[in-house]
Each structure stands twice: as C-alpha cells, then as structure tokens.
C-alpha cells in the first residue's frame, strides 16, 4: 500500500515519515500535488499556523490535489494543522479559508480555562457512537500541541475527545474516508504508532 505524505514546507515531515517507516509502510513525499493521484492513502501533516499552511498549499497546487483526493473515496488523514485545514476556517487566521472538506471551524482555546497552548499529554476518550474495535487506544494519553481546537458540524462524524480538565477538545474526527487527528500520533510513543496504523487500516478497509 502506498502512503503519500504532503510536504508543503511547514510540517514536521521528518517525524511523520519516521513513524510510517517504523510501521513498514511504503512512503512517498509529495511536493506539488502530482503524486497524490497514485496514493492509496494521503496524509497531510502540519506544524505551522493556519494561515501559513493554507497559503503554502494554495501556492504549491496541493490544495486542489487534496480536495480531489477527498472526493475519490480513498483514505485521507490530517495530522494536527493538517486536520484543522480540512475544516472551513480558523480563529488563528480569520481572513484565510480552509479546504472545507469537512464542515466545521477552529476556535481559540480559552485562556480562562487553562494555560494556552495546550501543550502536552492528554487523555483521549472515544465517543459512544464509535464501534469498539480499537480498544488499544481508547483512554490513553496522546501528545497535543495546539492553541486552537476543532469543532466539527457534521452529525454523522465520529468524534473522540481530549479532556483538559475544564475544557474538552476534539481529539479525532472521522467521516467516511476522511479522518482528522488533533494530536501527534507520530510523537505519542508506541501506542501513538499503533493508533496511526489502526487509523490507516480502518480507513482502507472502507474502500
């Protein structure tokens, strides 16, 4: 199975590829959208601001390729900023639109409820409407590093949440072939790698 990772110059591409390689996937890097067609599964990572990320994706032509891929029915996974950019917009860069693949938005974390950014390990709980076939990652800690949280509007979306104490954040969402992951599975230890593998497998099994 060929996994393509979109490199738009602003992600922690190295650690994502390192994690996928550790999981024995065949990985190809895409720089301009031209490799996306051949992908069995496309991963869009991100360590950057929403505005910077979207500007780059538009400039490279990858934005269009990602949109086309999302409509193809093949697995599409967004990691951190990648996931946020699948939504319509973000408080972080209000003047810039997201890819709009999934209805929703990113809103600021509330400084009155806790220290921002949410930087560190957070316990993730799976939503009740998800079939319990991924027991090994529910109620586990994953590494989050973000100042904005995702709000997904689609009621059919399967959502898991991270509990910050005074506030809940969306940890993952999945609608059909598209999954968005707020935390960094590639930086969440061995069970982070297992989670990533399960996510890829689950989406692929739907194709």
């Amino acid at each position, binding site marked *: 199975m060929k996994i393509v990772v979109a490199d738009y110059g602003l992600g922690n591409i190295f650690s994502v590829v390192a994690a996928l390689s550790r999981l024995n996937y065949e990985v190809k890097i895409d720089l301009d959208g031209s490799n996306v067609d051949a992908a069995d599964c496309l991963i869009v990572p991100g360590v950057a601001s929403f505005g910077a990320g979207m500007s780059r994706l538009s400039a490279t032509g990858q934005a269009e390729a990602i949109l086309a891929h999302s409509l193809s029915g093949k697995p599409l996974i967004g990691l951190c900023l990648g996931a946020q950019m699948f939504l319509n917009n973000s408080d972080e860069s209000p003047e810039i639109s997201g890819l709009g693949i999934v209805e929703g938005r990113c809103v600021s974390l509330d400084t009155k409820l806790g220290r921002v950014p949410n930087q*560190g390990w957070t316990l993730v709980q799976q939503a009740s409407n998800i079939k319990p076939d991924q027991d090994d990652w529910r109620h586990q800690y994953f590494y989050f590093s973000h100042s904005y949280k995702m709000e997904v509007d689609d009621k059919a979306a399967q959502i898991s949440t991270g509990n910050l104490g005074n506030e809940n954040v969306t940890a993952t969402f999945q609608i059909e072939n598209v999954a968005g992951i707020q935390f960094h599975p590639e930086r969440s230890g061995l069970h982070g790698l297992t989670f990533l593998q399960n996510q890829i497998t689950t989406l692929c099994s739907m194709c």
Partner: protein
Amino acid sequence: MVFRVIARLDIKPPNLVKGIHLEGFRKLGVPAEFATDYYLQGIDEIMYQDIVASLYERPGLAELVSETASEVFIPISVGGGIRTIEDAANMVRSGADKISLNTACLRNPEIINQIAQQLGSQAVTVAIEAKKLGSSWTAMTDSGREHTGVDVVEWASQLEGLGAGEVLLTSIDQDGTFSGPDYDLLDTVLAVTNLPVILHGGYLTAEQIVISAQQGASGVALASALHYKKITVDEIKQSLLKAGVEVRL
C-alpha cells in the same frame, strides 16, 4: 492538565555534557543513547540544548535531532543558536517539534512572533536563564555567559503578547547543584504569564518535583538528576500520582 517530566540534554557536539551554574561542563556520553534510554523509561519529552552554538553563530544539532526523531517517538525540542526563521524551520524539518529561543529573542523580541507566524506559537519556547539579583532575577544569554540588564519577571510578562507558546525557566543559581529548585522564581513567573512554564535547575528528589507541580508548573526539565541517576522517571511519576497530580503513564 497533565504534568510533564522532561529530560534536558546539554550538548557540546558530539557529546552530552553537564555543568554547574551553566559552566564547567563534564562529558557524560552519547546523547542519542541517553535520549533513547529516557524514552524507554517513559519520559514525556526530550529537550536538546546546544550550549556552544551561539559562540559559533550557528545551530548545529540538526543531525542529532534527525537521529533521535527516527528512534524516539515523543516530542523533541531543540535550542541553542537559533536566530532566524530559517534556522527554526530547518530544525523542524530535521525532526524537531519545538524550538527554543533565548539570546536571539532578547536581542530582537520580534523574532518570536515571526517564527510563530510560520510554525505556530505552540512550537516556539522562550528559554529564560535566570540569575538572582537582589530581590529579583536578571536574564542571561549565551548559555549563562552574558548579562542583558533585563529583569526576568518583566521579560516573562511580555512573552505571551510576543507570541511565545511556552516558557522554559532555568535557575542558573540552582543549576547542577542538587540543592533544590528555585520555588520563588517559579511562583513569581507563574503569576505574570498564562503560558505553560517549565522549571529547570537544581532538582534532586521526586518530592521537589511534586511541590513544583502543586505550585502550578506545567512540567519540569531534569538534567543532572537524571544523568547522574539520582532519581528515575518511574519514581517521579509514581510520586506525582500519589500526590494527585495527573501524569502520562
């Protein structure tokens, strides 16, 4: 909020080193081996600091970061000699999740936001090297070598507005001494910023770490205590759990 136990590795390429009061550095071994060991013990994060980079006007840990990022699947932060957006972006491309600034941002505070605009503020840590001065603390640069005349508390209060994502607070007076952390410094800085604050310098016992957690630190960065095997990651996390502090297991 889950409390973080972080391993801080001072690097004089290619060696892991450790000093006292940020000087007199002793060679301790191969950095990647220590990092892997801490990862397997359950450490939450690795922080690499290039202690000579600002002397040579270049950040030099990209290769070490890549090597570590290939084996150690937890967050890696890197600091020392990072001056420009390109320096920061290169470190992230090499596998770093966060970069840390000190000298560069005291000279030019705008660099914090410039880098944050590209990488997001959660990827930008401001490291403060605090030396006691009268009833307050003064900020040092160049790995504790140079005075700036800047008051630490004043500086810390500005960091959120400047776009930083986190504060790494090092007590130069306590560093490497095993005589306990500077609780006053932590209290004072926590009171002036909403950013996560990590305290570094002087830890010897798990109890000291528990107190810092109860004070409100978001985490601790440990060097001597871990490198010289005074305490283990497991002992620290068990103590924190017993005291009701949430940690990642």
